[in-house]
Every structure is written in C-alpha cells, then in structure tokens.
C-alpha cells in the first residue's frame, strides 16, 4: 500500500480500508523484517531498568579510579593486588597510578566476574519470560512476529546489550583514567613498551573480547527465559547459575569439569596485553562461548518454537 493510498484511506475511513483492501497484495520488503530488531533495541535501551544497569556499570570505574587516587595521593604506588577478579585477576590495578589506560583493564577485570554477567543475566532472563508475564508475547506472536524471528531478535538484542555494557565500562574507565592519572606509553605484561595509541587499540580489542565472553551466559539466560512464564524467576535463575558456576570454578576437585564452565577462561583477556599476544586461552574462551551459544541457542529455539503460549 503506498503512502498516497494510505492517506486516502484515512480520509474516508480511518485505519480500516474498504472491502478488498485486506486482500490487496502487499509486497513486503525483506528489510521490513528488521523493524522488529529496531523496535526491540529501542524498547530495551529506553527502559529505565536497562539504563540503571548501565549507570551502575559506569559507576564502577569511577569508584575504582577514586579509590586508587586516594590510596596513591601520597606519591606511593599501590602494592600488587587482584582487581576484584576473585584472586585470579591480573595485577593491572598497581599500574593505574602510572597510566590511566590501565584503569580500563582494571575496571573490566573488576566487572567481568560478576557485574557484567549479572546485567546480562537480567536482560537475557527477561527477554522472553518478561514478555510472557506481561502478556505482550501473545500479541507479538499474533502480529505475527514469528517465533524463530522473535527469538533471534531477542538474542541479537542481548548481544548488543553485552557490547553496550562492556563499552560503557571501558569508556567510563578511559575517561576517569585520563582525568585522574597520567597517560602515555605503557608497559605490557611482558615488559615491552607500546605507544598510547597502540594501547588504546589493545583496550578496544579487550573490550570486544570481554563482550564476546558474555555470549555464553546470554544464550544460557535466553534458554532459561523460554522455560518459565515469570521474568523475575528467569533473571534469578540465570544469576543463580552464574554464581554457582563461579563458585564451582574455585573448587580444585572439579578441575576436570572446569574447562567447560562458561566463566573459566574469562580473565584470559589479560593475555591481549602480552607481547606478542598469547592467543591460546583467548581462542579457548571464544570457542567455549560459541559452544554455549550453539547448545543453549538450539535448546532455546527447540523449546520456544514448540511451546504452548498460554500466558
């Protein structure tokens, strides 16, 4: 239906055209399918809850930056310490007072074990279950959004949120670091010196790796979301799984299983700061995330496309 026709209809008879109108051939463009993704992104990022999660994530680098600044204001440098990485985190924090760029790595190391995946768990867990408990799912499906299309759209939006959340942490840390600490050439973990520009490139690469590290829990959360009709239950389950896996990953007796935990290689992103970059664990991490995305993505699809929508 062309724009002119639509306006014509509006003059005569608002919203519903003459008989035969419904049968008039509409030739939908394949691009129109993307309208749902656009709507989903807009809806997600306009939600007060999403903005609050991002604000919390943006606040973490500010707090870490201020804490380091206060600790080192007498001129001394910080002793080596894990950046909140459950003891296994890389010792970036001691470098922050020398170079503000290290605040990016510190902030990502501090948020990756819990804050970031928790935010993803909330958004992913709510993706289908939230629509279901609000009843809006049935109207999306009779629109008809198409079950596979809706699920893909939801997953794409959760991935977009992973990227946005990681970038919020990185950009906030970059700004706070540049404001409170000197910036310039930096020393890699291997002891070599790289320029600030190259350091920025590595920081971006790390942010992307961190975002990719969240793909697994995003798929897991989406799968949980297809199992229940309650958004809160799905969010709680996903975050609960996250905490459980994080704890199990610390138990030495389970070392045979640990390489299969989605969080096991998360802190491997520090290897990007080696010279040359040490890729082994990074690749293992990305492969593991892809495996989780495939397994739980398929499970979510199998569940969602056959589910009776009674809410």
């Amino acid at each position, binding site marked *: *239906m062309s*724009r002119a026709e*639509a*306006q014509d*209809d*509006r003059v005569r*008879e*608002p*919203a*519903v*055209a*003459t*008989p*035969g*109108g*419904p*049968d*008039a051939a*509409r030739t*939908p463009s394949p691009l*129109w*399918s993307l*309208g*749902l993704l*656009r*709507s989903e992104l807009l*809806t997600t990022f*306009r*939600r*007060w809850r999403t903005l609050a999660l991002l604000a919390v994530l943006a606040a973490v680098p500010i707090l870490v930056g201020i804490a380091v600044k206060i600790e080192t204001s007498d001129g001394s440098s910080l002793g080596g310490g894990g950046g909140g990485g459950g003891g296994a985190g890389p010792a970036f924090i001691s470098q922050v007072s020398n170079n503000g760029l290290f605040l990016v790595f510190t902030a990502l190391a501090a948020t990756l074990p819990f804050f970031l995946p928790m935010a993803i768990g909330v958004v992913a867990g709510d993706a289908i279950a939230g629509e279901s408990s*609000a*009843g*809006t799912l*049935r*109207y*999306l*499906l*009779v*629109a*008809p*959004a*198409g079950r596979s*299309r*809706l699920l893909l759209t939801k997953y794409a939006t959760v991935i977009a949120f992973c990227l946005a959340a990681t970038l919020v942490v990185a950009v906030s840390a970059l700004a706070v670091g540049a404001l409170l600490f000197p910036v310039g050439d930096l020393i890699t973990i291997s002891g070599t010196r790289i320029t600030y520009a190259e350091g920025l490139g590595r920081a971006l690469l790390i942010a992307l790796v961190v975002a990719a590290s969240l793909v697994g829990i995003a798929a897991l959360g989406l799968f949980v979301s297809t199992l229940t009709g309650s958004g809160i239950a799905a969010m709680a389950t996903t975050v609960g799984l996250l905490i459980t896996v994080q704890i199990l990953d610390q138990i030495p007796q389970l070392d045979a299983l640990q390489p299969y935990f989605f969080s096991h290689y998360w802190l491997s992103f520090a290897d990007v700061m080696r010279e040359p970059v040490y890729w082994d664990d990074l690749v293992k991490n990305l492969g593991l995330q892809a495996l989780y995305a495939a397994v739980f993505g398929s499970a979510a699809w199998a569940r969602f496309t*056959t589910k*009776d*929508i*009674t809410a």
Partner: protein
Amino acid sequence: MAEPSATEPERPHQERADDAVIATRGLTKRYRGGQLAVDGLDLTVPAGSVFGFLGPNGSGKTTTIRMLMGLIEPTSGSARVLGRPMPRASRTVLPRVGALIEGPALYGFLSGRDNLLRYDAADPTADPRTRRERVAAALDRVGLAAAGGKKAKAYSLGMKQRLGLAAALLQPRRLLVLDEPTNGLDPQGMREIRTLVRELASDGTTVFLSSHLLDEIEQVCTHAAVMAQGRLITQGAVADLSAGARGRLVVTTPDAGEAARVLKEQGAADLVVDGDRVTAEPPERDLAEVNAALVAARVRVRGFVLERASLEDAFVALTGEGFDVAG
C-alpha cells in the same frame, strides 16, 4: 449485511466449508495435566458474519481462540483460518487477522502510541513508511488520539482495552478475533465497541466475538456458537438458535379473563393470566387475526406484543442449565 442484527433466512446454507473464514475439524486440546480443554470441536464461521462465541468461563473458548491463532498446538484435529491450516500458515494468515485475546497486554513504560508502533513493527508485512499514519488512524478510531502520548501504565482498564483494539486495527483485516472486547468498559464504551463492530462488519470484515454476555452477542451477532465444558453445543444463525425456544405472545388488557378465553379459542396454548397481563404460546395463524378477534370480542387491548425468545432462553433450553462456571 448493513444491519448485522437482522437475520438472513434466505441463506440457510451459509455454513459451507469453502467460504468459511474459520473451519475446525475435530479440534481437540488436552493439556499436559490430562485436562481436556477442547473436545472434538467442529466450528464453521461463515465469511462476512459477526460470529458470537458463547460459553461460560472455563468452557474452552480461549483455548480454542489460542489454537486458531497458532499460539497453542492442537492435540488432534485441524483448524483452518482464511482457508489455510493453522498453525502452519501463521506467517501468511495472521497479518490479515486482528486479534484481542484475553484482554489487552501493553508495555507500561511505553506510551500508547509507542505500544502500537512496536506491535506494528512485529508484523513483517507492515510497511514502515505508513506505520506512523496507520498508528495515528488506529488511535483515532478507538478514541485515544488525545491520550496516545501518555504512558500505558497510566491508562485505565477501559483505555487499555481500547488500545488493544487499536492494535487489532493497525491494518485492514479480513478477520477480527475479539475475546471479551467490552470487558472493563463503561456502558458508553460498550456501545462504541458495538458500533465499531457493526462498522467493521459492514466493511466486509468477519468478526469473531467471544463473550459471556448473552445480550451483547444478541445485539451484534448474525451467527453464534455455544460451548460448554469443551464441547460445541450448537452453532448457526442467531435467529435459528432463538427460534429453537419460541417467543411468547403478551397481551396487556383490563379484561384479562375475556382475553384469555378468546386467545384459547384462537388456538393459543399455555395461557398464563397475571393481573392485566395474559401470556401465551402464540398460535400458528396470523397474529393480526388474533388481535382482530380480541377486539371483536370487545376486549380492550392496551398492548399486544410478541416477545421474541432471547438467546439466553435458547441457551437454557439447549443446555438445560444455567450459565455457570464449569466445575
């Protein structure tokens, strides 16, 4: 179909499967708990009808509607909507179907207009270039043009119901499925919905209207089906259904005794005299003759009315029970 409440006795064979907008054969849904929600439903909704889908709460109406809309997979049997099998043909069928299922559901944090924009975006056949205009027209049509910018969580139940209707009217539709559309509306709102339904029907849209309000169905529907405990009890033109329970002749007169005698002479049965009201089963002959006979016998007639049987009478006659929730 200019007057949907009028009946069409000259088309008794409308319920042919080929021009049916909805046709189910042995449609059955047994939920996982073993509960049989819908049992062997053979429903035929003729094109162009305003079809009332009646039944007490819990009789399986909503499960049926969800199966028709592809939300629930039938346990057995088949359902065809607009001539195509559901849920397999959802993608081609549903863009031409507007639906309001079990009340409206909205994103409270979005404005009414943004809710409609989102639902419209979910339809891959909806042209994004006309989206804003169509949303504005739909809001206008349900009387929400002024409240379109308000957050949906601030809407009253009636406004939410209207917004749900607007979502069903975003595109020209061949079939509108309205599940309890007047829930939560004030009498004025109910009347507006009935007018809207008649308007849509006169445009050629088939309207499938589920309700537990019998007089609502009687006022707007041309056809009706009655469900109870998962089974279809009857379906057909509203006139035929009410005809099952015959109307009564009511004569109001100060000369009640004499009137009763004359009516009996004229062949009326089951006479009941109550003060100045005489009611009877009408005789087979022309009622004008009956009235003339009354006047000839010098009966002073104040009122002479044939009270049509209501659908409720028909329902009670059919089921032999009241309109209660199935146990």
